[in-house]
């Protein structure tokens, strides 16, 4: 086990896959010599050269279109969209082209590609550089959607995404880039579509994703000292969704809380809540409560941003109040 930061784990995951498969190519803005704006791709340019690690113009549609055209003709491209907010500038390519082409052609076209992007708030970048947009991708049939919460998952799920035969949107949480953790040595490949139970509790289930996972864990610790034993599930992959694990835990505890970094409406938490309200209804002992950012863009000032996003305190207070 080596201790790596989340950003180092990303670079290690890309390197592992590029070394394994010569058909893996990596493109994006300032990813090459500069090592990426978030330094999550440091060393790749030097190791794999300018053909396989290629800087692009500021042309998000061309970046994603190029990845798509390459994927259908034999490459396994990884494309970086610098901030997930910019997915909007190439959303047609992602939601209408990449997501639908295999289906429309009844399987003639395969699209083994990964779109990596820096997601989420907490870094004071303001409303146009801080969104958590996993739900945009989750809402579109034909996209797989992954969002790791720690360095080991970052490497292992990225490797799995690159090996997956279908298009994967890979959300890297900006606020986690500096977080360190143990990452298995040697080749490390995880499994898409598997949630993880990080903590077992009998009273309620807290379901979280990405940067909300460590917050949920801390909240669970605090709740334990109040006598509330919370299970914490790290969703990890929104599509495919490991409903068996997630709903299984809901059934065990009878209570579900979701913690989302995105604004309130139509987040992934709503989907999971609606699944639980349908399929686990008889096992529910109380309301399903979603903890989200209010339905606003993230403000820039540190005090405002911190107060807007779900915090450990808010999770604790919400669960405590609802469990009374």
């Amino acid at each position, binding site marked *: 086990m080596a201790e790596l930061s989340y950003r180092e784990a990303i670079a290690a995951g890309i390197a592992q896959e590029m070394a394994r498969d010569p058909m893996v*190519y990596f493109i994006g803005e300032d990813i090459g010599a500069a090592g990426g704006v978030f330094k999550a791709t440091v060393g790749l340019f030097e190791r794999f050269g300018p*053909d*396989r690690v*290629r800087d*692009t*113009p500021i*042309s*998000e*549609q*061309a970046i*994603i*279109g*190029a*990845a*798509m*055209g*390459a*994927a*259908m*003709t*034999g*490459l396994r*491209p990884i494309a970086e969209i610098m901030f997930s907010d910019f997915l909007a500038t190439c959303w*047609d*390519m992602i939601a*209408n*082209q990449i997501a639908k*082409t*295999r*289906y*429309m*052609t*009844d*399987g*003639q*076209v*395969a699209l*083994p590609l990964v779109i990596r992007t820096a997601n989420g708030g907490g870094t004071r970048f303001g409303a146009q550089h801080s969104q958590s947009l996993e739900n945009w991708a989750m809402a579109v*049939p*034909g996209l797989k959607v992954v969002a790791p919460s720690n360095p080991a998952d970052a490497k292992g799920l990225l490797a799995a995404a690159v090996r997956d*035969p*279908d298009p994967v949107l890979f959300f890297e949480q900006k606020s986690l880039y500096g977080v360190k953790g143990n990452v298995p040595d040697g080749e490390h490949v995880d499994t898409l*579509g598997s949630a993880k139970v990080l903590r077992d509790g009998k009273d309620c289930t807290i379901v979280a994703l990405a940067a909300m996972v460590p917050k949920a864990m801390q909240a669970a610790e605090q709740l334990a000292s109040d006598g509330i034993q919370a299970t914490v599930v790290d969703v990890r992959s929104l*599509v*495919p*969704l*490991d*409903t*068996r694990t997630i709903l299984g835990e809901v059934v065990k505890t009878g209570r579900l809380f979701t913690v989302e970094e995105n604004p309130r409406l139509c987040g992934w938490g709503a989907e999971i809540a609606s699944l639980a309200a349908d399929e686990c209804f008889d096992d529910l002992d109380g309301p399903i409560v979603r903890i989200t950012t209010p339905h606003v863009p993230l403000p820039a000032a540190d005090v405002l941003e911190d107060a807007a996003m779900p915090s450990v305190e808010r999770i604790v207070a919400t669960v405590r109040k609802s469990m009374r």
Partner: protein
Amino acid sequence: MRIKAPATGEVERATRLRLYQLMVELRDFEQRAYELFLENLVRGTSHLALGQEAIGAGYGVAMRADDYTFCTYRGHNHTLARGASMGAALAELMGRGNGMLHGKGGSMHLTDVKHGAMGSYAIVGAHLPIAAGAAWSAQVRKSGQVAVCFFGDGTTNIGAFHEALNLAVVWKLPVVFVCENNLYMEYTPIEAVTAVKHPAADRASAYGLESILVDGNDADVMYDIARQTIGKARAGGGPSLVEALTYRHGGHSRADPAQYRPEAEVREWLARDPIKVYRRRLLEAGIGEAEIGDIEARAQQKVDAATEEARGGAPARVDEIERQIWSDGSATWRN
């Protein structure tokens, strides 16, 4: 560069016969599609390219079997020009289970990957970057393949056009962008919404490319420019942007009677029908009426057979709905 028709004799006889045959087949196919629509057998929308056959045919004949074609919702011609099955195409228009996409795509999305027809794209502009991507793949795989991307005049005003052209030039990709300027977007004349007279040719310099404007209704011209531009791309010379002037004989889509077009304009362009023009040229070049008639008869037979095949298909199978989202064939998003 403004390309004129190559002198008679410069294009070989066999190639010419092939060009004529292909144009007639494309024409007959779309005429048939229209008839089937009138019979209410084509339920979805369709966008015919009647009158624009010389472009798809010129490129189709010039392309290598493993080259890539990317086209639009007006893509019957380009797809069939690569050798895709007419029967499967008609069946797809009719929503049949034996359709090219088993009913899932429809007229706007004809695709036949095994013939290099990499898809028909229905959102304006999207396929230009995708074609660049296929060319990038060919470049790094050193396969010698070329991607040819067809689109309309109206498409030159959307952002994806600009991004694709710039990327293709910077990366020197083996891709040919072919703008079929048929003078209209849907119902609006292209000149009413475009800053320059020639929407593609007048913009080539913005990407450091040569300005190429050609007669898109002349199959010899189209074949010639296809050879040149594909040849350049294959030789590592990078992309080209071709503007081919043409005209659609009918409306934008099946819903459109096309009454916004001046009568004189329609008349002029009908007189320049690429098939009529080319038939005359073949006769002038000494190819006999009998040989031409034979080609025409065979095209009819081929379309008739395709029609039978399509008509014979059962409706699309409902279990297709939840198939082929993923590579394992399924549409499963949960366990």
